[in-house]
């Protein structure tokens, strides 16, 4: 009902105040300290479920570790944590650009005023890229079972025909069991392509702020093209990267919906971060033109993709669980019964927090239009999907030695605060609003 024409300040810039910087740097510092303490504790063997597992499930555990199983390195939990946060925040950073790209390609006008916010996510890509690279070189051998060269030596006791059949996907063109060149090239390519397209789209968008002639759509049209390219490329690379980085941890297992599953999980997380960012910016007095109608749309997005995630998660679960084929059920056994039952409560909690909670909380129209509801749900969704990633990565890497303790809290604090720091720095560099967006008027009068 915004009928009266209100004049908003389209020139405003976000100021990343020293106070906020200090808080975030403190978060990064505390995270780093907790990470180091947790790493030391893990190295010394404290704080994991190992002791617990030894007393209750010891017999089962040793029987499970048959011939061909490699000795568990306690440092695996550190690499797994870095890998978990690295991949999670990589996807979120890339999804920010995906959101912008979808708005461009769909000619959507409502989101024009919040475009800069999601545009700034991608600046975190290089950081997670470095983390993933380092983690792979330092801990790849502990994280990925398929990196062990003795799996591919024919005639030996450790020879694994299933992984040998898949070896080209990792090692081509080199010999199986040597350096995974194909896999590594893909890792570099994902970051290269995503970051390049992010930079191109963002630069064009920023340049649009300085056009001299009103009605100059050059940059907008350019960005529509680049957005279409990004969506097509990202559609494929997101799936393949999910296989490379996450599904290959459980290399014997496969799911044809894994790419979408990871997509759904991280896309709804990115939407939750976007919502949180918009609401917090509004609380600080920025983005006056974003009213409950825009929040309503963001709420609908979160609601819809929470349901979408559930649909994908459940389809993957039910088909494999009910058909009960050994090569498929192994993934769910690890998460539900085996490994000392470390992960079985999480999988129930996962569905509860990621489906039932947003479904009931965001169902009514009024809830989607109130920032307090959105804040609570977005935060819950974020926690829930972090947990979802935890359930994807940890059982295959840390096995029954996993847990949630100082190391996990420290790592996520470190990554989350760094993400917000980089995001806020990028946001402060340019105008907060893409003021020359051709559909800005539509966004100002958005009314649903």
């Amino acid at each position: 009902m915004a009928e009266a024409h209100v004049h908003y300040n389209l020139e405003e810039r976000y100021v990343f105040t020293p106070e906020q910087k200090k808080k975030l740097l403190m978060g990064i510092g505390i995270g780093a300290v907790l990470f180091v303490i947790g790493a030391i504790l893990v190295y010394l063997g404290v704080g994991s479920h190992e002791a617990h597992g030894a007393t209750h499930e010891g017999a089962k555990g040793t029987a499970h570790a048959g011939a061909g199983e490699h000795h568990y390195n306690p440092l695996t939990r550190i690499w797994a944590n870095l890998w978990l946060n690295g991949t999670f925040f990589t996807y979120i950073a890339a999804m920010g650009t995906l959101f912008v790209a979808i708005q461009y390609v769909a000619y959507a006008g409502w989101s024009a005023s919040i475009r800069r916010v999601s545009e700034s996510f991608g600046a975190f890509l290089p950081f997670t890229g470095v983390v993933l690279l380092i983690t792979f070189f330092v801990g790849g051998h502990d994280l990925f079972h398929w990196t062990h060269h003795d799996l591919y030596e024919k005639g030996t006791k450790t020879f694994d025909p299933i992984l040998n059949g898949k070896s080209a996907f990792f090692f081509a063109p080199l010999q199986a069991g040597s350096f995974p060149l194909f896999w590594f090239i893909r890792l570099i390519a994902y970051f290269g392509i995503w970051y390049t397209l992010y930079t191109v789209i963002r630069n064009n968008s920023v340049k649009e702020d300085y056009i001299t002639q009103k009605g100059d759509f050059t940059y907008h049209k350019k960005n529509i093209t680049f957005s279409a390219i990004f969506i097509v490329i990202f559609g494929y690379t997101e799936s393949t990267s999910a296989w490379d980085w996450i599904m290959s941890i459980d290399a014997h297992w496969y799911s044809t919906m894994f790419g979408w599953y990871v997509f759904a999980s991280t896309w709804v997380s990115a939407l939750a971060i976007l919502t949180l960012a918009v609401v917090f910016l509004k609380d600080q007095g920025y983005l006056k033109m974003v009213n409950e109608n825009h929040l309503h749309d963001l709420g609908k997005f979160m609601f819809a993709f929470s349901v979408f995630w559930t649909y994908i998660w459940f389809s993957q679960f039910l088909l494999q669980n009910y058909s009960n084929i050994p090569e498929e059920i192994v993934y769910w056994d690890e998460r539900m019964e085996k490994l000392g039952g470390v992960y079985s409560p999480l999988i129930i909690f996962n569905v509860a927090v990621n489906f039932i909670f947003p479904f009931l909380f965001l169902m009514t129209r009024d809830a989607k239009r109130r920032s307090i509801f959105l804040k609570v749900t977005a935060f819950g969704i974020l926690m829930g999907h972090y947990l979802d990633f935890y359930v994807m990565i940890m059982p295959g890497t840390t096995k029954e030695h996993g847990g949630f303790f100082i190391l996990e809290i420290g790592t996520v604090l470190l990554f989350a605060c760094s993400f917000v720091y980089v995001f806020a720095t990028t946001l402060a560099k340019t105008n907060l609003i893409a003021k020359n967006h051709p559909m800005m008027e539509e966004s100002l009068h958005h009314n649903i």
Partner: protein
Amino acid sequence: MATHTSDKKKYLVGIYDHEETVVSAVKKVQNDGVKVDEVYSPHPIHHIDVYIGHPRTKIPIAAFMFGATGTTLAVTMIVFMMRIDWPMIIGGKNAFYPPTMVPVSFEGTVLIAALGMVATFLVSNLMGPGKQEFMFDRRTTDDKYALVVDLDKNTKSIEEIEAILEKHGASEKPRVVER
């Protein structure tokens, strides 16, 4: 029918040519103290219900109720089939295995919610297949917009309301229609 003429209600119908005129007329006419009963238009007008002052639709509540009914029905059906009537063991799972109820209860929820919402809509608008809807002006199915004022709900005289409607852009002299 003729004996019931005294029961008929009287309406004043103002005809407008454009969407913008009728939307602004709705607001201005109500500012001048005339209660607008309804607006008829060839196409949906965004938020016209809010401008007229209609209360918000309760159909989401009906949807939730019907959906819950559908879930209950579907769950009852599965429980009866798989636990009482004909237990079957599939995939080594128990005959009664809750995750398998999810697809059926989802479909049941959607089906009953959809059918129930259609029924609620038809009943609350007194509509149905084959029913001839009363029309204040046939041209509202083509290119005109009709602003209808219920004379019983207004204290102003017909002449006063006519003047107000014309002042805010009615394209012809408002007519009195009995219904």
